[in-house]
């Protein structure tokens, strides 16, 4: 960084001289040069004017100012070794966040898979329930058919619905006239005629098309007879 004109001085030395930071030995040689070099003298004067301006500004406006009192909140310094900060730093790292999210999604998927598998195996188990073996006494003559049928009807795996529609044995055929089916029983419970609610509004009567379907799960007589025939043979 030369000062340009005569390349006789370096700006750094000029600045050092202005701020009185030039070593004593260099200072004497610089001063002797300054007396003989007009360009260096001119530059020295320019820089000195600038320096004087800043110096006066500092002296007039800053020096009279008192140093303000600075309040430091000593209560809330952030301790470096805070375990909470360490945990926070560990958990909230972006890479770890995405990893945790992925792991959570995988866990949810695994739970869903296990749940679905369990429910399917339950369905299979229901389908795989073996039908109870019905041991029938081998009838010795055709007149025992009715007796065998009554034994079958008394078997424990026959449900109430089956009992609601008894087989057409001689004895039961008479009962069937007396014992109502489920549909008949519900129909009997339905209000007959026009009834009123507690507030006096008419109860809506069942309309056509709102009938109830009852699955017929009863044993068929024909199948039973065929079964008995097969035992005979």
């Amino acid at each position, binding site marked *: *960084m030369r000062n340009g004109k005569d390349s006789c001085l370096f*700006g*750094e030395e*000029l*600045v*050092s001289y*202005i*701020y009185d*930071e030039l070593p004593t030995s260099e200072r004497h040689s610089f001063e002797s040069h300054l007396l003989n070099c007009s360009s260096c003298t001119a530059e020295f*004067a*320019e*820089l*000195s*004017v*600038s*320096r*004087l*301006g*800043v*110096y*006066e*500004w*500092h002296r*007039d*406006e*800053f020096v009279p*100012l008192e*140093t*303000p009192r*600075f*309040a*430091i*909140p*000593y209560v*809330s*310094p*952030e*301790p*470096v070794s805070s375990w909470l900060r360490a945990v926070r730093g560990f958990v909230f790292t972006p890479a770890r966040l995405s990893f945790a999210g992925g792991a959570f999604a995988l866990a949810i998927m695994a739970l869903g898979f296990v749940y679905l598998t369990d429910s399917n195996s339950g369905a299979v188990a229901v389908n795989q329930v073996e039908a109870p073996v019905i041991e029938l006494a081998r009838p010795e003559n055709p007149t025992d058919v009715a007796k065998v049928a009554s034994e079958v009807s008394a078997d424990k795996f026959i449900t109430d619905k089956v009992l609601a529609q008894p087989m057409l044995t001689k004895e039961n055929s008479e009962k069937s006239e007396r014992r109502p089916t489920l549909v008949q029983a519900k129909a009997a419970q339905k209000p007959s005629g026009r009834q009123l609610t507690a507030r006096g509004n008419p109860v809506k009567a069942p309309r056509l098309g709102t009938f109830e379907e009852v699955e017929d799960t009863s044993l068929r007589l024909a199948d039973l007879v065929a079964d008995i025939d097969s035992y005979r043979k």
Partner: protein
Amino acid sequence: MFTDLTDEKLVELAVRSEPEAFGEIVKRWERKIFALCFGMLGREDDARDAAQEAFVAAYKNLGNFRGDAKVSSWLHRIAVNQCLTIKRRARTRAEEFLDDENHGEDRVFVAAAAHSPSNRTEEAERNVLVRQAVGSLPVDLRQVVVMKEFEDMTFQEISDTLEIPLSTVKSRLYTALKQLRSKLERVPMEIG
């Protein structure tokens, strides 16, 4: 209690167990940091705010202080950043500031006539112009001028604080004074 300890030891103490040790650092540097802020911003109230925020920011970030830098360098860097933040904030509020050179000169002359007493001296007006001229310097040049003139630091201290070579400090100061002279050419200066 803490007067014998170095700045670095004080920071270490403040981080570990005794936050009050930072008070000694504040006591040591408050005048210089306030001077730096005043030189950078040119206004007392802004300088006070900047210095206050700088010390608070330094205290809150004590844990981030690395021992490889000097405490003075670290404080100066924080203070200069706070000054720049305050200037930026003020600029968004469209306030008057030093670096607004083109409009600033007209405004200052109007302001001087309006707010100063009638016997305001030429010297006071010149101070206003110098303040504006310093404010219009680039930050790196302004910082060196302010550290030299307001903080009364040696070239070597500035070099250590800013962590730049000694020759860079001198060349920056040389350039800054040259630019200041060109900005102050219209202002008569009495030498000697």
